[in-house]
């Protein structure tokens, strides 16, 4: 996925003295990696392939970037792969689940990211699942790593990803009757206009830098 960025802080035309207004940048997500991945990553991939016959079907792509291994997994296979990673490859710990919102990544707008840690082998692997905004369902991993319970509630609260099979998927940070999911890119920052003596400045979401 490639996105072109130009300018910064929403500045356009004159009025920007930071110099960032003229910035043109192409941001690119890292593509698939080819073997050898390097380090223990090949060992992990080999072990997973051996333990899980449907490996080729379950893994969308393997990314090695900045010395970290990320496995992009189809959501239907997530629980299977997670069970094998835990039981066969000794990834005892899941450090939680993070949400990511890519509004321009059509039909893959919402990502869930699971960093795994093997205490036995001192290895780290990251799982990533992508789902469309229109169908934000991902199977819950609470049955595999019980500690994911509150993390999945938080990701649901902030991004609106629905974790199917979660024992009690309710909001954890925002009030129960809250509308919307605040960490999505299109969520309005809100706020109120601020009155000073002799002047009023608009609410943060109305200022140019957040437009």
């Amino acid at each position, binding site marked *: 996925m490639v996105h072109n960025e130009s300018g910064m802080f929403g500045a356009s035309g004159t009025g920007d003295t930071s110099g960032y207004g003229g910035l043109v940048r192409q941001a690119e997500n890292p593509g698939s990696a080819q073997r050898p991945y390097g380090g223990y990553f090949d060992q992990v991939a080999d072990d997973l392939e051996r333990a899980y016959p449907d490996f080729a079907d379950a893994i969308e792509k393997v990314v090695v970037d900045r010395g970290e291994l990320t496995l992009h997994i189809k959501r239907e296979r997530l629980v299977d792969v997670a069970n094998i990673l835990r039981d066969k490859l000794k990834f005892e710990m899941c450090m939680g689940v993070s949400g990511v919102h890519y509004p321009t990544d059509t039909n893959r707008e919402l990502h869930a990211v699971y960093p795994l840690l093997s205490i036995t082998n001192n290895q780290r692997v990251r799982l990533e699942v992508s789902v469309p905004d229109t169908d934000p369902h991902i199977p819950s991993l609470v049955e595999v790593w019980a500690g994911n319970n509150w993390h999945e509630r938080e990701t649901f609260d902030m991004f609106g990803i629905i974790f199917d099979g979660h024992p009690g998927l309710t909001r954890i*940070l925002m009030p129960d009757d809250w509308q919307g999911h*605040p960490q999505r890119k299109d969520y*309005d920052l809100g*706020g109120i206009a601020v009155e000073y003596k002799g002047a009023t400045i608009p609410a943060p979401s109305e200022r140019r830098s957040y437009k």
Partner: protein
Amino acid sequence: MGLEDKLPSGIVLTSVEKLAGYMRKNSLWPATFGLACCAIEMMAAGAGRYDLARFGMEVFRASPRQADLMIVAGRVTNKMAPVLRQIYDQMAAPKWVIAMGACASSGGMFNNYAVVQGVDHVVPVDIYLPGCPPRPEMLMDAILKLHDSIFDEKLGPNRERVIKEVELAAMNAKPTHELKGLLA
């Protein structure tokens, strides 16, 4: 509040006012309501170096039913607001509120969907204490100023008259953004 509120205004009430004010200002019991970094300064004010014990208020009560001063120390989120209001309602009258720091007073730097823009949206505030966070000396100054105002607090019909006057002044006040010139 009690019997003193039923007294007719006059010389008796004035004497009772003075006595009650003197008693009340010297026996303030703060409730613990630390919400953020201001709470660290509030705890420092209560500890040995700054020593709120000099004013007899070093014991912060965990139960609102034993407290009559709420120091709101930190930003109040929309989720915390009903909790704060419940704690306030559980405190026995007479009770006072200090909005400690920029966030409790006005929302401070958190001008967004999650934070209440000033705790005065939820409870009546007696003292607004600026600072981010205010140092313990500033908190103690606010507390001493509150002591003074408690000492001068009116009762019964006198109190109603004062409330009406303050209300009228607030209604007639110019909006902040229409004010011109330097201070005051």
